[in-house]
């Protein structure tokens, strides 16, 4: 995208009917490190790449527990993500106080989307620069939603956002038909494989990723590092049979350089 005379204010339409500030906000999501979500009938798994800036620092928190039945993984401006997580936590707590019952995820994401929309229609605000993968349970089972800075939200069987998410999406597109009936373990396995795709050949270690699970009878929680490392070892020992031969650049860490991620050619990114 190039700069143009309609992109200064979020309240300015372009002649083609686009709001450039909103689209730029969605670019910010693409710059963040990858976050992946997948769901079965009874479970949702969220996974993200968590690389620290330097060896001296800790890594950024990208997965937040919102309530026992809902969690969120973010990509983009983490500060915006934190603020929205706090809003979501508040909404869940308030609902529980009044009704002694969990706020249905479907309603939470609508509230979140409406909150994001406000920022696309006020001259003194800017859109939130974060994409949220919301995974949670309600009466009708497990759900995964993606909330955009534009105020749109969609429900997904599986999705990936952030940098090099296209590689993960390609993997997920091949496997997603089996997810609905998948077991919890296989779902986590697929999340790890999808995560590995975004690393473009780098070795997947538990120190560089975070996995979280929520399911029927299982409150949302982040898996601890030992568990994750054990799962990674298990899957790697089992070989790479799950990775089909037509996958590009997924061999043992021998690739020297990172390949440039394929450029997203989208006419209007809001058509995601």
């Amino acid at each position, binding site marked *: 995208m190039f700069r143009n005379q309609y992109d200064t204010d979020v309240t300015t339409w372009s002649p083609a009917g686009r709001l450039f500030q909103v689209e730029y906000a969605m670019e910010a999501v693409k710059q963040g490190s990858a976050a992946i979500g997948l769901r079965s009938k009874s479970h949702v798994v969220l996974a993200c790449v968590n690389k620290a800036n330097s060896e001296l620092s800790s890594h950024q928190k990208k997965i937040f527990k919102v309530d026992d039945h809902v969690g969120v993984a973010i990509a983009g401006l983490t500060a915006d993500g934190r603020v929205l997580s706090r809003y979501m936590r508040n909404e869940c707590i308030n609902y529980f*106080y*009044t*009704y*002694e*019952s969990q706020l*249905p995820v*479907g*309603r939470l994401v*609508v509230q979140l989307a409406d909150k994001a929309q406000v920022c696309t229609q006020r001259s003194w605000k800017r859109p939130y620069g974060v994409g949220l993968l919301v995974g949670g349970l*309600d*009466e*009708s089972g497990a759900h995964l939603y993606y909330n955009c800075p534009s105020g749109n939200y969609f429900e997904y069987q599986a999705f990936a956002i952030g940098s090099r998410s296209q590689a993960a999406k390609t993997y997920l597109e091949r496997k997603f038909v089996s997810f609905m009936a998948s077991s919890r373990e296989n779902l986590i396995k697929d999340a790890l494989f999808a995560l590995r795709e975004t690393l473009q050949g780098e070795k997947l270690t538990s120190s560089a990723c975070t996995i979280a699970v929520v399911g029927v009878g299982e409150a949302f929680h982040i898996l601890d590092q030992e568990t994750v490392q054990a799962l990674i070892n298990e899957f790697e020992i089992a070989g790479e049979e799950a990775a089909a031969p037509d996958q590009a650049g997924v061999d043992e860490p021998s690739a020297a350089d990172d390949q440039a991620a394929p450029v997203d050619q989208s006419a209007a990114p809001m058509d995601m």
Partner: protein
Amino acid sequence: MNSFDSNPATNSLISSEADSQRTLYPYVTGTSVVGIKYKDGILLAADMGGSYGSTLRYKSVERLKPVGKHSLIGASGEISDFQEIMRYLDDLILSDNMWDDGNSLGPKEVHNYLTRVMYNRRNKFNPLWNSLVLGGVKNGQKYLGTVSMIGVHYEDNHVATGFGNHLARPLLRDEWRENLTFEEGVILLEKCMRVLLYRDRSAVNKLQIAKITEEGVTISPPYSLKTFWNFSAFENPTHGAEGSW
């Protein structure tokens, strides 16, 4: 409570400025509501009386109402406050429906909402002068609870308000069991309502029984109970209590 109200000095400490709007005492009241769980759901019973003090003034007051798809409410106490509560609940159900998603508020949620409302009003010294019974079925789960005007709330297999607590609950403690059939439930409720009719001066002999199951709500048309006045205790009521009347 009356002496505080008449004293202007203490008035402003307790209440807000619009003092003339607070509920101080009830005017038109309904008496007991009795509710039980049975095999397919919940049964509620209440008579159709609206008393004006000691006068049995209104005799066609519906004190049992459906709430949304999954709940039934029965109210005793001030009838106008019950009408207000029904307005709150209608708004609540409307908003719930406007989400237009697969979710809906069940009896547990409605009960808790009412608890919050009642307790909140009590804290402002402006109570809704009612004792409510809330029952329902959702996804096969039966729910039966009660809330009082001060916000006391609990769930049980059988609940009652007012005099029902003293006269009906003991009967239910002895005779209620899991998985009563509909007929057995009605017989049990009628037994309770009959005792209330004999002994509660605010009771009238015109009642409704409401049932809620997974399929929905049915409220019976009004009917009367058969009473038997030939008990020896009724023949000579003051026998054994000389000087009484």
